[in-house]
């Protein structure tokens, strides 16, 4: 049983989570489908075959329906940083705002400008310029992902900044470190390639439906060939890149890794849980078994987390209560240091106000000793530093299992399409039919791991979400939460209905 705390901060979290999860229904499709449209159109440009033009325009129509709602939900996230997370916006806006502004300048204008050509320029510009515009939309969409994931990567692993006690905020001191943060690089490559994968599954799903219905067979087969190749390459990349992403997590967010693996007590030569059922009654520090059932692959977690067999992987208990043997400082100790840092910061501000230079200098010197633990000073209990293992563990395993399945699906579709026997494989087409739904599940699960796994932090180790939130009434956020639910529901119904109708019309409408 998960305890639900209906406080302001949790309503704010719920609203942001709702928006982000809803946004991420559409974004991966935009990231991948834009490139698939560019592939289709490039083939048309090279071959002059009108069937490829029809295929391009069909997928472009679906892209357009999806794109509109993705744009609509994107602006909400930008606004919500200010409206619901204003303390966050002030304390890290110096760093976090920059990627957002760059995203606007470089990426959004590329998308917005060439989007009109892509949809309405068929008879207004040359074929070459039209194809170029489609590529620009694809590149623009993916560039926007770069910058927002740079921002997200920084939240997961803050680098390239310094705390300024004068302004009481974090300020950037190394732009390159923020942009090339290893966490940001793996975030972008993992999220964008998984978007390619998802869009390819989307093409498989619709094409499979056509093949099962015996409609638009040539178009479906041609689409499947392109999507399978793109999807296969993407899914293999996602798998390897996912390993790199987990390695990064192990280095900088060990609590998240422990939650992903349901690891309470750290161990050397830790095994990887291939399957397992977590014990919901288990609490940090108690002696209950973590799992009701588990199947582990020995040593694998140590190998994946540290690239070294037999190495130590810390568990939740080690991270909360410390482990002297392994040199791990516990959250309880960090909280003490953090509380000292907060007290010294308050003394510094007071001394400055009183124009007491000596007192300010002394307070600042004390603050500097513990400033790295500032965020921990806001925690009420060490256990607050633990995310929900039940959610993170299950989401992680759903993602991994599905991620392992996708290359097999793409390979099977590609193999039988090239062999010319795909339409005879009646067992495979239903799998294709549901594959986009599986992709959707994997996408959402991945972001749940990333975001729930770093709770309670808005900025890892520096700022918990309860400090980041705006000082609003809970009622105000509740009202807007349900307004968003209503609008999202209405828009989703419209989107799905229009999408299904377009699919039912098929490429002949073009």
């Amino acid at each position: 049983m998960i305890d639900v705390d209906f406080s302001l901060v949790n309503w704010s979290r719920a609203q942001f989570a709702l928006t982000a999860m809803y946004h991420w229904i559409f974004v991966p499709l935009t990231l991948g489908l834009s490139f698939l449209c560019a592939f289709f159109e490039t083939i048309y440009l090279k071959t002059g075959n009108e069937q490829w033009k029809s295929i391009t325009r069909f997928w472009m129509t679906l892209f357009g329906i999806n794109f509109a709602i993705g744009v609509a939900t994107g602006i909400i996230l930008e606004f919500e940083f200010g409206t619901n997370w204003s303390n966050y916006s002030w304390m890290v806006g110096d760093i976090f705002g920059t990627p957002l502004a760059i995203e606007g300048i470089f990426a959004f204008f590329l998308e917005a400008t060439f989007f009109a050509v892509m949809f309405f320029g068929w008879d207004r510009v040359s074929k070459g310029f039209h194809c170029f515009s489609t590529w620009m939309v694809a590149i623009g969409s993916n560039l926007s992902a770069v910058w927002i994931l740079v921002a997200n990567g920084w939240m997961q692993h803050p680098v390239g900044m310094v705390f300024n006690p004068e302004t009481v905020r974090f300020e950037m001191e190394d732009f390159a470190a923020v942009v090339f943060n290893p966490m940001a690089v793996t975030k972008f490559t993992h999220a964008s390639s998984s978007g390619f994968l998802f869009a390819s599954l989307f093409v498989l799903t619709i094409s499979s439906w056509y093949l099962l219905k015996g409609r638009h067979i040539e178009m479906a087969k041609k689409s499947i060939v392109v999507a399978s190749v793109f999807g296969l390459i993407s899914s293999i990349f996602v798998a390897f890149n996912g390993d790199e992403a987990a390695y990064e997590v192990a280095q900088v967010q060990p609590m998240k890794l422990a939650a992903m693996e349901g690891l309470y007590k750290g161990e050397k030569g830790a095994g990887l849980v291939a399957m397992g059922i977590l014990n919901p009654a288990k609490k940090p520090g108690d002696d209950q078994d973590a799992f009701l059932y588990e199947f582990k692959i020995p040593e694998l977690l140590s190998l994946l987390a540290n690239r070294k067999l037999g190495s130590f992987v810390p568990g939740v208990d080690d991270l909360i209560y410390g482990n002297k043997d392994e040199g791990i400082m516990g959250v309880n100790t960090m909280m003490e240091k953090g509380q000292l840092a907060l007290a010294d910061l308050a003394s510094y501000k007071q001394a400055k106000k009183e124009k007491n230079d000596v007192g300010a200098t002394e307070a600042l010197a004390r603050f500097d000793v513990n400033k790295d633990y500032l965020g921990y000073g806001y925690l009420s209990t060490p256990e607050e530093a633990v995310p929900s293992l039940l959610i993170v563990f299950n989401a992680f395993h759903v993602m991994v299992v599905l991620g392992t399945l996708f290359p097999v699906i793409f390979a099977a579709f590609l193999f039988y399409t090239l062999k010319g026997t795909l339409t005879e494989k009646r067992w495979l087409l239903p799998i294709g039919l549901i594959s986009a739904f599986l992709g959707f599940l994997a996408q959402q699960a991945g972001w749940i791991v990333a975001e729930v796994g770093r709770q309670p932090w808005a900025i890892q180790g520096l700022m918990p979400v309860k400090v980041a939130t705006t000082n609003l009434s809970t009622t105000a956020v509740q009202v807007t939460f349900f307004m968003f639910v209503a609008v999202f529901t209405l828009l989703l119904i419209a989107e799905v209905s229009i999408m299904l109708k377009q699919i039912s019309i098929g490429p002949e409408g073009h």
Partner: protein
Amino acid sequence: MIANLDYITLQQLWWILCSVVGALFLFLTFVQGGNTLLWQMAKTETESALIINSLGRKWELTFTTLVLFGGALFASFPKFYATSFGGAYWVWMLILFTFIVQAVSFEYRKKPGNVWGAKVYELFLLVNGTLGVLLIGTAVGTFYTGANFSLNDYNQVSWQYTLGGVNLRGLEAAFSLFNLSMGLFLVFNARVLGALYLLNNIEFGPVAAMETRLRKAVWTNFLCLLPFLLYVVVSILLMQGFHVDESGVVSKVSFKYFFNLLALPQLLIMLLGGLGLVILGVLAGAFKGSYKGIWPAGFGTVLVGLCVLCLPAFNGTAFYPSQFDLQSSLTIYNASSSQYTLASMTYVALAIPFVLAYVAYVWKQMDSKKLTSHEAMDSESY
């Protein structure tokens, strides 16, 4: 060169850059103005299709410019972003909702399988063009009239205005006649620009009657905006402003913005030149049979917008004053990002001319031929 710029120059530069983006957004609200004209100007299905498709090819630019305006403010003046967005919660949320529903309306309105019907999306467009622009104007008005916030030592915002025990969170800005007038001025200006844009973009051969209606709309909407514009301009000249002295203490000073205009004659020239260009565009569109009135009127709007956004920020003025606690007021110097961040972003901003160039090039490519009824009624059109 950028590395040698001092902090104050960077802060001023970034306020000007943000103002340019904001002013461009005001020009691009011709989309919102056009949204509101749909109900009055289009008498047939073909006319509706022409208006919707003409605007539908530009709405993303307006939307993106708004997003960039927000992003640029977040990056360069995070304290303003945190204070205004976090404080005036309801104003920003309502603006947000009007833009969310607009974003899907063009795409979904006529698509087969549309469960809510075209009229619902047309209503969304109307709401976006009226309430959305009105609220943005009201928010801009608070640069002059102030807002009801206080900041603590940690720069955390508290909103201090309640009515009947309910914290209005920025909605009280609508109680100010000045703010409302600013909003209504922008609404009618957007409608003038919308009509001028449609005149420029549509081939009127088979729908000549709509051209006449649009020309009339240019004039009537200009007449509607005049009282609000006059009230705003006269108020700005006469009202108290929020002066910041060299030690950072904020106080109210009579005729502050009038003196700012005298101290910053370039802003006065922008204001007068901008208004002149708007009038020129209106006269050309309404009475001279011109199809190009959007360009002087649009450029004029940009100049007026620049003046409106820069006037309360320079010459020792708090651009986001607090009525509740004067010393919490924000200036471009106490609300900005660090020198390092502003300098880094200035390097990035060097790309802006390139972005503007390709936007202009694509615009020219797409609009070299006017939108025809045939295109607008095509099965793949909006």
